[in-house]
């Protein structure tokens, strides 16, 4: 009976993945947090009462109060302004990086998974080689080649996500390729390009989308880490990772200088991870 109910639920809900997502409290809360963070950082010029780089030595290390809701740093700069403008940069780098990784990774993955044979073997070998540079090392290599800087970090983090996105897409495409409707399309004389675009990609996208969402969280973490070690955004410009690096010398004197940027990264990534988990549940049908 339970099985029958679940099956009926899946059949009834198949058309409304977004509505199913909104039925999960965790997903709704994280969506709201994300929308709030994006709106606040996008509206930085309206919300911040001072420019983020304006120093005021007389107001150094002011704890949070009505005038400075997030306090001030060692140079007396308004931490709220820096948090908002810095968050803008952090989110932009992370999102663009994830997008770069997703576009390249999904494209290569689709080609490898659909083509099979030697094309798949060569791509697989190349991905294997890239994966031999663990974690942040691949991004570091790209930064080493291109030089430090915001745009280069964006590209570097994007490239470092290509191997995992390619693998995921390839695995999903391999399964879809064997489906009857693909064979049918081939029998009708569709060419490879149209089969990939019209039949493989749409059926691969749902599971891959969940993993890309999770990857976006990791991309934001990795980009902030690169700025933290001084390879991304350069001072005095604010960015959450760079702000943590600048503030770590003063943890004993002024907790608020590192607390807010840290919290910003943490909340963003946590919300994205919760959303990604909910999306995987929807994609796998385990939310019903």
């Amino acid at each position: 009976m339970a099985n029958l109910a679940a099956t009926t639920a899946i059949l009834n809900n198949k058309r409304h993945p977004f509505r199913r997502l909104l039925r999960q409290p965790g997903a709704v809360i994280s969506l709201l947090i994300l929308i709030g963070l994006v709106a606040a950082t996008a509206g930085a010029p309206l919300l911040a009462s001072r420019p983020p780089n304006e120093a005021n030595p007389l107001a150094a290390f002011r704890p949070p109060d009505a005038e400075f809701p997030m306090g001030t740093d060692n140079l007396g700069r308004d931490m709220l302004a820096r948090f908002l403008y810095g968050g803008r940069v952090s989110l932009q780098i992370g999102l663009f990086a994830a997008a770069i990784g997703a576009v390249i990774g999904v494209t290569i993955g689709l080609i490898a998974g659909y083509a099979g044979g030697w094309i798949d073997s060569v791509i697989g070998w190349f991905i294997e080689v890239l994966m031999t540079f663990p974690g942040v090392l691949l991004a570091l290599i790209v930064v080493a080649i291109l030089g430090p800087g915001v745009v280069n970090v964006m590209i570097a983090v994007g490239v470092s996500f290509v191997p995992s996105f390619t693998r995921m897409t390839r695995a999903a495409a391999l399964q879809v390729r064997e489906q009857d409707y693909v064979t049918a399309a081939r029998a009708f004389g569709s060419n490879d390009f149209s089969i990939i675009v019209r039949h493989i990609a749409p059926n691969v996208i749902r599971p891959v989308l969940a993993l890309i969402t999770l990857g976006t969280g990791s991309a934001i973490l990795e980009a902030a880490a690169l700025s933290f070690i001084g390879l991304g955004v350069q001072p005095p410009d604010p960015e959450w990772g760079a702000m943590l690096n600048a503030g770590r010398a003063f943890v004993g004197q002024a907790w608020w200088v590192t607390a807010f940027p840290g919290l910003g990264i943490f909340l963003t990534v946590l919300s994205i991870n919760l959303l990604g988990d909910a999306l995987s549940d929807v994609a796998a049908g385990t939310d019903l």
Partner: protein
Amino acid sequence: MNRYLVRRFFLSLLVLAGVSVLTFLILHLAPGDPVYAILGRQAASAESVQALRASLGLNDPLPVQYARFLENIVRGDLGTSIRTDRPVISMIAEQLPSTIQLTLASMAIATVVGLFIGLVSALNRGRWLDRVLTVAIIAGVSMPTFWLGILLILLFSVQLRWLPSAAPASDPRSLILPALTLGLAEAAVIARIVRASLIDVLDQPYLMVAHAKGLRPRRINWRHALPNAMIPIVSILGLQFGLLLSGSVVVEALFARPGLGRLTVTAINSRDFPLIQGIVLVIAIIYLLVNTLTDLLYAVINPRVRLT
């Protein structure tokens, strides 16, 4: 088993060949003339450009340069650092032990804490304890290591005054906070996988049989469920090692701890390409070795996947 070993060995060699090509190309992929990338466009005089070009052998065709690069590596010569004029291999050899120490210590913390939390969470599936731990796990996965490290400094160095935030490397206490930072962050990842793996095993029919036979739950968990749940976990140990090794870049910067990570950042900032190539190659080879070993271990404990 022998066939698997041979096959695995040749696959690793093939990947290693790719790694060496990519490492070699780091210098040549830099936009513009690599000599200018190293010297900086303004400072370079025509003579210094020629001298560096000759000393790096950049006048030869690429395949010749690559062959020489390989030949030098085989002889254990990773070139000379542009910044310090010292052999790259000895600069790496000086910093490697500290990073390996940090990696192993954090791996021990990550494995013990991750296993414990994952097991407790899975064995209490659906109860409040599992819910609390699941939230803690996802929070841990979302935590930036560098912020976790700052919070640990705030707690243990500033508030409680138990541990130094930075200490000479000879002081064993200098390892505790960095290892804890890196280890706890990775523990969340391990706990997540342990929980999923154990829950998967707990739903298997043979455990239902064990229950039906009237075995005590404790015996079922320890004798039947755990050993099988451990199999996927062994396969990710190599991956974890690599993540911790590269995670040391951030943690060493945070705690002002000497090591390969800090050397990497200095090398990138000073565009010291021979040093960058050396570090990248050493880390990739270590990682490849560890991964091959874990794969072999995996094949030993799990006879089902000997040939893929």
